[in-house]
């Protein structure tokens, strides 16, 4: 809870804002750790038996990647179950009590699997001393033992026909990891609930289609993703925005792609070229009236080229460019400090100087380190 009203033990109770729950709140919380979402219980209690204070901490812990990897070795049938009882201990809703695993479950897990860890130079996690858990034969304390319904594999695993659990990332990876090769059977995309790229056999999640990120060869999954009208343009995430709002200095696409690459200048000395603004799907040049060196720096920085710049004013070749092919600086452009350069420009003004701007931008110096200090010996 983010409210200060929920002190100490109630901090994790989702209902702690309800007045009467400030103190006698439930200390059980729903299990959210994906690794342990198929347990015969759904509520847990923190801190756990590894000293993690929250499920978030448990989810990024060393043990939460160690145990699933160890389960693949088939060292003990109920290892994953044991791992979950210490990562996300059961919480008894009626009593708010944390229920530990029985000592024999811990001892069997450790006996069978500790030696496997030794082969790769790893130790069994320290905090799991089995003597801390109740002995189901002598103590009369409740503890957890697996029954025949317990899942041996976690949701992050694929279960071979032979019963072995392998990490889901090894399913259909082209290498047989199950003794019976069952992880390499039925691997075409649709059988795995995936989409097959046209061209190569690559499988991608349906959520990756038309999401603006290339996955298939030639970005085929990003084709025909929108139906923009004649006077609209397609954003990188395939939304449609009217053409006249393209490169107007205001973000209209939710991924801001209508404001990308709006300015072009040359970045190598050999091909000095005019400064070009791509606005509303047309290209414009920039009139030289009132141009200042600060503006050249502004344009170059906007293009990620913060090094020295060179500005050249060139006469407009009247045969080739119509007056309305030019954009003009807004009066008081300096007040727009910090915004995109192309926002400072207006169409449809006369260009007194009959000249346009050509610009060369260069990269800032980078990647150099000071010469080694000379120290006389």
């Amino acid at each position, binding site marked *: 809870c983010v409210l200060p009203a929920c002190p100490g033990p109630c901090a994790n109770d989702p209902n702690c804002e309800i007045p009467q729950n400030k103190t006698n709140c439930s200390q059980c919380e729903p299990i959210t750790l994906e690794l342990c979402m198929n347990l015969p219980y759904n509520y847990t209690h923190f801190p756990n038996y590894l000293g993690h204070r929250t499920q*978030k*901490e448990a*989810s*990024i812990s060393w043990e939460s990647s160690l145990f699933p990897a160890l389960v693949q070795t088939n060292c003990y049938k109920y290892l994953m179950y044991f791992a979950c009882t210490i990562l996300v201990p059961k919480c008894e809703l009626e009593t708010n009590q944390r229920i530990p695993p029985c000592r024999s479950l811990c001892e069997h897990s450790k006996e069978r699997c500790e030696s496997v860890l030794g082969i*790769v*130079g*790893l130790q069994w996690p320290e905090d799991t001393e089995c003597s801390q858990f109740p002995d189901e034969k002598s103590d009369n304390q409740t503890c957890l033992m697996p029954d025949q319904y317990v899942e041996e594999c976690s949701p*992050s695993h694929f279960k071979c026909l032979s019963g072995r659990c392998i990490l*889901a*990332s*090894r399913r259909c*990876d082209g*290498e047989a990891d199950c003794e019976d090769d069952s992880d390499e059977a039925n691997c075409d995309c649709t059988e795995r609930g995936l989409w097959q790229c046209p061209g190569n056999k690559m499988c991608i999640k349906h959520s990756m289609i038309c999401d603006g*990120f290339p996955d298939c060869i030639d970005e085929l999954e990003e084709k025909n993703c929108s139906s923009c009208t004649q006077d609209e343009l397609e954003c990188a995430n395939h939304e449609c925005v009217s053409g006249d709002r393209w490169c107007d200095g205001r*973000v209209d696409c939710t991924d*801001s792609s209508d*404001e*990308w690459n709006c300015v072009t200048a040359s970045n190598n000395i050999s091909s000095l070229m005019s400064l070009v603004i791509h606005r509303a799907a047309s290209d414009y040049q920039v009139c030289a009236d009132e141009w200042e060196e600060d503006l050249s720096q502004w344009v170059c*920085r*906007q293009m*990620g080229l*913060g090094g020295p710049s060179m500005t050249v004013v060139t006469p407009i070749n009247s045969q080739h460019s119509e007056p309305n092919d030019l954009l003009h600086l807004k009066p008081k452009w300096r007040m727009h400090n*910090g*915004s*995109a*350069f192309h926002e400072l420009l207006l169409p449809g003004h006369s260009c007194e100087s009959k000249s346009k701007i050509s610009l060369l931008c260069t*990269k*800032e110096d*980078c*990647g*150099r*380190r*000071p010469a*080694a200090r000379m120290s006389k010996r």
Partner: protein
Amino acid sequence: ILGGRTSRPGRWPWQCSLQSDPSGHICGCVLIGKKWVLTVAHCFEGRENAAVWKVVFGINNLDHPSDFMQTRLVKTIILHPRYNRAVVDYDISIVELNENIEETSYVRPVCLPSKGQLVEPDTYCYITGWGHMGNKMPFKLQEGEVRIISLEHCRTYFDTITSRMLCAGYESGTVDSCMGDSGGPLVCEQSKGQWTLYGLTSWGSVCFSKVLGPGVYSNVSHFVDWIERQIYIHSFLIN
């Protein structure tokens, strides 16, 4: 860094330390611009709030603040929208500092590769960091020379290698990155004396054990477009 050596102060002026109280150093990071730093997305798991972080530049010994040290707070954390925790894919993030650093001999940005500029297999490059050395955590910045390994060859070690990753190291694992190096640079010297960032330390096999294999780095060349766009958006469009 396993199998490396202590660096001379000022040798890697783009290296920074991503710190969060009370732990102190959590991850490495790399200066790429006056107020822009790269690191990996997995460093922010469980600590997504920018307010809990600070970035320290110009130090060699974590335990001895130097005269050249500069510390900045974090204004914005931009995680790659496709970062995938399960297979550590798209493991990259951009950090916007609360104010510009001052460029000195000890605090300088590294170059980013140009679009499509890739580093060739068998090229020798450097990794640096304050991560685990296999038997202890160092105070002084460590450096190690590693060789770039082709993705095909790397796939013989790990089966979740994607084009967003870069592999470097040695079959024997003698020189490798380790816990605490994450987010730090893998840099290669291009034209005389100019260094370019090709990788960010991301993951690998357990590095203080006998398990062998190379280290896996986020492939910066794959993300240059995304990096430049995010910097442009956060500099000129979000105000």
